[in-house]
């Protein structure tokens, strides 16, 4: 299980790192381009928001460029798919396919089994974040772009906490539903709603309340990279993850498993 998920995390991290290599590689050219600078300033703030630029500046600053590109939609999409896919593979898929029958035939408690699966999810996410961060640091060194390492580190932890929370409610659905399809659809549905609320909150001040209703609203890569400390957000996301996992454990322990 660890081996299989490790491979998957490695593949995702390699993909993200190569993608980031491309983005960071073109940054020096973009930052010097007057057209780009003008464009970034003139873009409506709602459009910039959708692309991950949350504070006033344009994409001529490296932090805002990185947050909108390396920690933008592609990152969210890859991390989201990895997390939901893993949470599904760890319980719902095993139950649906019947493989869980073998694991359950051993004298191991269901809670212990679930916690092992949580450990697989946590280590996979951690590996993915660490590799992506190392990739970004390496690429910055390669293109000679000076950065302050700590904000990136903090963003890494916050990103990990965000996707752990996504993984935790996906795991909850994975334990709750009888059919794998229902588990996946619910996880994707909820994640999509959270994402949509986050985008909505940035479009117009009238919708800024929506930010509080979504996990993604607590993660503002650009602000963290510019030096803001995301301690509260990280702790809240970790606490939420713990709550989701506890509920998942409670359900999995009591549930009839037709394997």
């Amino acid at each position, binding site marked *: 299980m660890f081996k299989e998920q490790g491979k998957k995390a490695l593949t995702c991290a390699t993909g993200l790192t190569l993608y980031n290599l491309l983005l960071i590689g073109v940054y020096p050219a973009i930052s010097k381009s007057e057209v780009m600078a003008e464009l970034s300033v003139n873009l409506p703030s709602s459009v910039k928001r959708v692309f991950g630029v949350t504070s006033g500046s344009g994409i001529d600053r490296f932090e805002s460029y990185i947050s909108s590109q390396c920690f933008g939609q592609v990152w969210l999409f890859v991390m989201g798919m990895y997390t939901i896919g893993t949470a599904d593979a760890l319980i719902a898929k095993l139950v649906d396919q*019947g*493989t869980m*029958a*073998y*694991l*359950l035939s051993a004298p191991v*408690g269901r809670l212990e089994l679930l916690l092992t699966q949580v450990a697989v999810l946590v280590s996979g996410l951690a590996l993915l974040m660490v590799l992506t961060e190392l990739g970004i640091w390496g690429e910055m060194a390669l293109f000679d772009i000076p950065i302050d390492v700590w904000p990136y580190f903090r963003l890494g932890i916050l990103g990990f906490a965000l996707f752990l929370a996504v993984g935790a409610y996906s795991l909850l659905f994975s334990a709750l539903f009888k059919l794998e399809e229902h588990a996946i659809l619910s996880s994707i549905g909820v994640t999509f709603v959270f994402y949509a609320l986050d985008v909505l909150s940035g479009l117009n001040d009238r919708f800024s309340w929506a930010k509080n209703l979504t996990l993604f609203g607590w993660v503002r890569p650009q602000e963290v990279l510019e030096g803001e400390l995301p301690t509260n957000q990280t702790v809240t996301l970790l606490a939420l993850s713990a709550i989701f996992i506890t509920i998942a454990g409670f359900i999995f322990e009591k549930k*009839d*498993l037709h394997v």
Partner: protein
Amino acid sequence: MINVEGLTKLYPRTKDQTKGKETKRVRGISEVTFRVKEGEAFGFLGPNGAGKTTLIRHLMGFIRPEAGFAQISGLDCWQNSRTVKALVSYLPGEMNFFEQMSGLEFLELMSGMHGNQPIFQKRRELLGERLNLNLQQPIRKMSKGMKQKLGIIYALMLDSKVLILDEPTSGLDPLMQKVFIELVLEEKKQGKTIFISSHMFSEVERTCDRVAIIRAGELVTVEGIQRLRQAQQRTFEITVSDEREVELLRERGLAIVSAKGTQLSVEIQGDINALLSGLAQVKVQAFSQKTTELEEAFMHFYEREGGL
């Protein structure tokens, strides 16, 4: 060793295909009661969908009974499932392993989960040789029969006191079925309690002492294997050399259910010696046993308990 009393678990049948409504028909099991003694081999026989797997899920503590209970070695299978599973080896009916692992990796994982005793490895190697399975092969490359062998190795390597085997010989060729029967008989000699569920009488016939027959979720009968053998109805398809011989066989009192030219079908209940001595008088050109469904072979049991 295994004690099942009044065990009930009913599910509403999934939506009716034609009307799109939920019907009142239920599936599952209803008030199933039986006991399996220590060291006994017990067959659990029933057509597909009769509730065999539901009963096994209770024994393994996968599902909680609505009423009644299942116990193994005096322990409740739901409440004490962890302790119960330390006593039990289980071969599931469906062979769904971790496809990306090799056979050996899977067995090592399961050995670890069962506490990794040195005897597991010894038995695993012996069983691998007897069943002629290359454990290094990735599971996704294995045929259905190979996966079945891997499942059997898993269940038998643990050296547990109780074996619960769900349709253990499905997918095995006749030679390997024979090896499996030998293995089960060896386990029985060591005093293990064996529970085999099947939809074919032949699968339990050579290994089990007693057999329970289940139909539509209800236990129809629990009988000794000898009595069931006597009760089993079999049909033989025979071709003789000319029509006079068909008459000769009829005169000997054989139950000829159909005859067309020199081909005839004979129905036998229990002892086949009358048939064999009859056939000794004629020139037999072809002889085969017709495969009969479980319900057909034991129809009178079902009829006695309220009809089909």
